[in-house]
């Protein structure tokens, strides 16, 4: 390559570095979209994948609010013994504490639910989650999760973006940017939020924002009431034919215009209007579950149109079938500062059956093998009592994973005897992201986006481990 070509290459890079910054994105957006959306399934920027993927898509069941690991997935007999006794200062000294800050004496609160062994694998799971117990052999429980943020909003941000500073792309945006979407009529990254649950912590749309990635990789929030997708319904007095007629006119005139202007943006615009029109059919078709047999409703415990987590799990399966790459379900109601015993029971009733049903349903349809399901919250809860509840806790909590290349029936890592610190095979959020990307066929170190002169990646700059022992 001669110096000119070299400079050309440099400039090509700097051009692409502008992808998120406007002018560059015009051209790139057009080229990707015009080729992709118009002709069918679009591929992402990673082509070919770095290695053979084990999972094609991800369903993240986000248990928002911070489920107590001590009442769900991490049994601590020692904590039961210590119930009501002072928490050893050696454990808590110098540790950041959320709402318990300023409390004179921190006391242990023993596990509020019995645990049972489930399945052939004999996994230990709370009696509050019997259905999840029923799929114990399918899931891998991580008991050594850690995060870096102790409050809901920033902890969700960290879990989603791997960064403490807000404004970075969420994992769903990264994955969709990298892998594209298999469906041509539905968005590649969909977020579902469910009704029900008591402690409704707010959840911000920044959790599915695309940050500096092109904004078409933003998560599309499906609403359980009103239009499932904002502005998907025709205006009053306009039927499908009328809407089609307007879109036809718009596209015809845009085509005429493009003859003189020759702007790839116009071509993209035309294809986006076609896509929008298709979505006006495909979204109602997606959310209309009347074709689902009763036994499927029964499996999930869902009722048509109730906006419940159960309904959303069913919808998640329907989205997965239609090629959506990243599906994120938020269920709020895990923020049990008080009354953790009944609180966990109540929220478990909303999610236990449906979470297990999703795994079974995917398995029945042969989709579990290439669908990675993630279950967990933004952090866990303290072994210390906050009245009858527990405070936010970031040093140790639990997740479970299933499907898409995950070895079922095992557990990974441990917290200390009181469930405070992760002490064995500690897993960071970045490890979790790196492993998720690995299962999707992506080397997290090679998956970067240039922004403000830096090659950003989901997993940040610190070392991140692929959790090899989890892989089937």
């Amino acid at each position, binding site marked *: 390559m001669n110096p000119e070509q070299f400079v050309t290459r440099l400039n090509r890079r700097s051009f692409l570095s502008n992808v998120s910054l406007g002018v560059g994105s015009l051209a790139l957006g057009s080229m990707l979209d015009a080729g992709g959306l118009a002709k069918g399934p679009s591929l992402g920027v990673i082509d070919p994948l770095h290695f053979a993927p084990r999972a094609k898509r991800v369903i993240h069941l986000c248990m928002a609010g911070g489920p107590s690991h001590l009442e769900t997935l991490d049994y601590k007999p020692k904590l039961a013994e210590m119930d009501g006794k002072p928490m050893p200062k050696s454990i808590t000294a110098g540790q950041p504490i959320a709402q318990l800050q300023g409390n004179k004496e921190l006391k242990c609160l023993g596990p509020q639910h019995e645990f049972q062994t489930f399945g052939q694998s004999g996994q230990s799971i709370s009696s509050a989650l019997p259905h999840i117990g029923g799929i114990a052999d399918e899931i891998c429980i991580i008991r050594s999760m850690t995060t870096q943020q102790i409050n809901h909003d920033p902890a969700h941000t960290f879990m989603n973006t791997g960064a403490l500073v807000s404004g970075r792309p969420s994992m769903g945006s990264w994955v969709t940017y990298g892998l594209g979407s298999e469906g041509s009529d539905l968005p590649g990254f969909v977020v579902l939020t469910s009704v029900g649950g008591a402690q409704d912590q707010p959840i911000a749309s920044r959790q599915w924002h695309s940050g500096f990635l092109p904004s078409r990789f933003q998560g599309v929030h499906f609403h359980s009431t009103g239009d499932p997708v904002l502005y998907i319904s025709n*205006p009053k007095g306009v039927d499908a034919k009328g809407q089609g007629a307007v879109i036809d006119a718009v596209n015809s005139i845009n085509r005429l215009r493009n003859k003189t202007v020759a702007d790839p943006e116009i071509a993209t615009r035309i294809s986006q209007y076609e896509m929008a029109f298709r979505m006006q059919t495909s979204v109602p078709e997606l959310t209309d579950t009347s074709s689902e047999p009763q036994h499927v409703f029964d499996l999930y415990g869902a009722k048509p149109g109730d906006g419940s987590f159960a309904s959303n799990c069913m919808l998640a399966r329907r989205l997965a079938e239609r090629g959506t790459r990243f599906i994120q379900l938020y269920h709020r109601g895990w923020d049990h500062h008080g009354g953790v015993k009944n609180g966990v029971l109540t929220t478990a009733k909303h999610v236990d059956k449906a979470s297990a049903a999703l795994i079974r349903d995917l398995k029945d349809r042969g989709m579990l093998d290439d669908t990675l399901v993630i279950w967990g919250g933004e952090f866990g809860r303290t072994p210390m009592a906050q009245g009858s509840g527990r405070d936010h806790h970031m040093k140790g909590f639990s997740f479970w994973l299933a499907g898409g290349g995950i070895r079922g029936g095992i557990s990974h890592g441990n917290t200390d005897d009181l469930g405070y610190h992760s002490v064995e095979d500690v897993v960071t959020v970045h490890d979790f992201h790196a492993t998720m990307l690995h299962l999707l066929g992506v080397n997290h170190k090679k998956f970067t986006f240039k922004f403000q002169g830096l090659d950003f990646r989901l997993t940040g700059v610190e070392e991140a481990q692929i959790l090899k022992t989890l892989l089937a």
Partner: protein
Amino acid sequence: MNPVMLFRMSFARHICLSCAAALVLFAWPSGLFAGKDLGGVDFARDIQPLLSDNCFACHGPDAKQRKADLRLDTRDGALADLDGVSAVVPGKPSESELVARITTDDEDDLMPPPDSGKQLDAAQKALLQRWIADGAEYDLHWAYKPVSRPTPPRVKNGSFVLNDIDRFVLARLQGKGHEPSREADRRTLIRRLSFDLTGLPPTWEQVRAFVADSSPRAFGKLVDQLLASPHYGERMAVYWLDLVRYADTMGYHSDNKQTKPLYREYVINAFNDNLPFDQFTREQLAGDQLPGSTRRQLIASGYNRLNMTTREGGSQPKEYIAIYLGDRVRNVSGVWMATTLGCTECHDHKFDPFTARDFYSLGAFFSDLEETPVGPQKYTPLPTPAQQSNVDKLKKQIPVLEAVLNTQTPALDDALARWESAQAERIEPEPSVEADANGTVPAVSAGKPIADPAAPPKKIGEILAVPLAKRSAEQKKTLAAHYRTFAPELASTRKELVDLKERIKRLEKAFPTSLVSVRLGKPRTVRILPRGNWQDESGPEVQPTVPARLKFADTESRTKRSDLADWVVSKDNPLTARVMVNRLWALCFGRGLAMPLDDFGAQGTPPTHPELLDWLAADFMDHGWDIKRTMKLLVTSGAYRQSSIAAAKTLAADPLNKWLARQGRWRLDAEMVRDNALAVSGLLAKPIGGASVKPYQPVGYWKHLNFPKRKWAPDSGVSQYRRGLYTFWCRTFLHPSMLAFDAPTREGCVAERTRSNTPQQALVLLNDPTYVEASRVFAERILQHGGDTDGERLAWAFERALSREPSAGERDILLRLVKERAGHFDENADAAKAAATAGEWPPSMALKPERVAAWAAVSRAILNLYETTSRF
């Protein structure tokens, strides 16, 4: 140990940030630096970006990450003797270890190391070798060099050159063998100018007048008119509000309301009044510290309070104080310096000459700000001068009335005497009074008054019990004062005083308020936080100071925000003027001369026209930081007036339009998309400033906000039709139509918005009630004013929406549409009625719903056209 081993060891441990994947998507034309530039290797242009991108992460400014003691960001470092080996030996590539390491076949020795994902190609290697052969000269990074005042080059092409800008542009173009495009047609020019300078489309009357005015001054006149329009300030404010992250909510967690419309209004007025940019800067950074600080300046100092804040229970105050500091450093360095100083929160910068000490020292300027770490922020009342003088006037009446109430007159003496005698009659002697269980004797031991406004206090009772003659002067005075508190003779004055105080309280409560800079008695201590960890207090304390590398002026003993502001706008500061004119350029051309707009560091791209950028920056400073002057220079240039439609050859040669052989073309910003539809339909409300407003928004969009739960109540009347920049800016749930068109959530500084092209945008323009209503009202206007035939009506509509007549093809398509839709609605009366009454704007009763509905289909189509929502 020899350096080679050192290199290897360190690299094995350290994995560099890898190069972006997927970046070889399309072919690229060669010859971007063709022409005279090829003569020699230019350090700033050719070498520094290479070193920065491939080497600095481990051999750059960050001492902690530095491997093998080698730094390549300074010449001394590159030439340093490391155990007998030097990375760079000037003039001798073959003796330079750097060359050996980039050319070796041994993977263990190769630089950059293979696992970094970085790779130099043969041309890059050759370039580095040539640079070393030429003497390995280093040069100051372009952005930190003093701003020069280059002379515009001489060029041939009289008709293109309208001002000095064009000389620079044309010299560059001709150097590359390109010619500029022809001038755009008049109606394109007026649309372009209108959108660029006011964010609004021109009216058809303006278009006609401009097209008809063939005088050579017509263009300049139009520019002056638009710059004088109050909507100019609104348009410029949209951009500034993105930079400074203006929003109406806190941003974190519950995202409660935290609105500051006074600040927004300040920004609009500042642009309209053409406040010099240095003054604009001073007022925002330190309006509270300027001598004789005015209300306006105090409002401006609200800039320092635009950061996101939290109220989330359980948040650590110390952590959030650290977060707010970092937020401010990122913003100040982004807005005024286009510097990614935020990178140094945890470590020294990898590419630019900044340290963590710089980060915290800059942050220390803001440690004097009073703020609530966790919880609601305290607002400052900011009465207008009229409000203040009104209240002051009223307050002056208080002592007058009080004097009346406090003055004993002979008439009052008489009244008191009468009252006393009446009292005496009504006082019944009581049986002996015993002390109660606590030993307290009840107040009036001598007797109990029966019909007093209130039972006299103990002291008064005691006085009353003393016979008149025996009372002391003091007792008489006390009694008189007591009497005056309820004397019927003073009743009206008393009421007047109560009313007056009530009124003052009401008026004061109605004072506008804002978040502004309020100083703490003692600024907070700021320490360098090791790796950004707020819990680690082991770092050294720092004092406010500007980044060491950028100390161009004497900044000793400077510790206030006003000093920071002075430094920012010092003419010796090479960044501020360059950064600002580059951004003004981008507003008029679609991209900056240097990109990106927010990174002038080593990882950014050096300017395409460095001399032009400097010439503009110098002109800006020399003419008193006059923004309107610079804007006028830009839009009256021949470069600006070019057509955006270029020959395929030009497009292929320069797809990004770096060399300006044509104008840029882009989709309008979110606010303008809205404003345009409202303006075309005739619905747009045009008052300037005021509180944020709530356009229609899907019900339930806010349902995930909590503490407290809240509902979006759309405004009615005129407030429903205000410009996009007044939309209530909810950071966690920004209005979905704004979001769809890439309006930023304003969590941090945004110098350049994304311009995406998505199906969501189509859904917004087709189905958002704002656009449906605008189409309906536009349809009514078409029917009322458009003429007698469908052809005339269509022409009328096109003129209003696109400033031109439809082409034959466009006519056919839309006339077919209206005919087909009319047929449909004639048979579907209910549908017609629904479509003809969309929105809350009163429908025109004189028109048949079927006709309005049919034409609304046409007006919807027009408002959805690419051309309608684009700036050509």
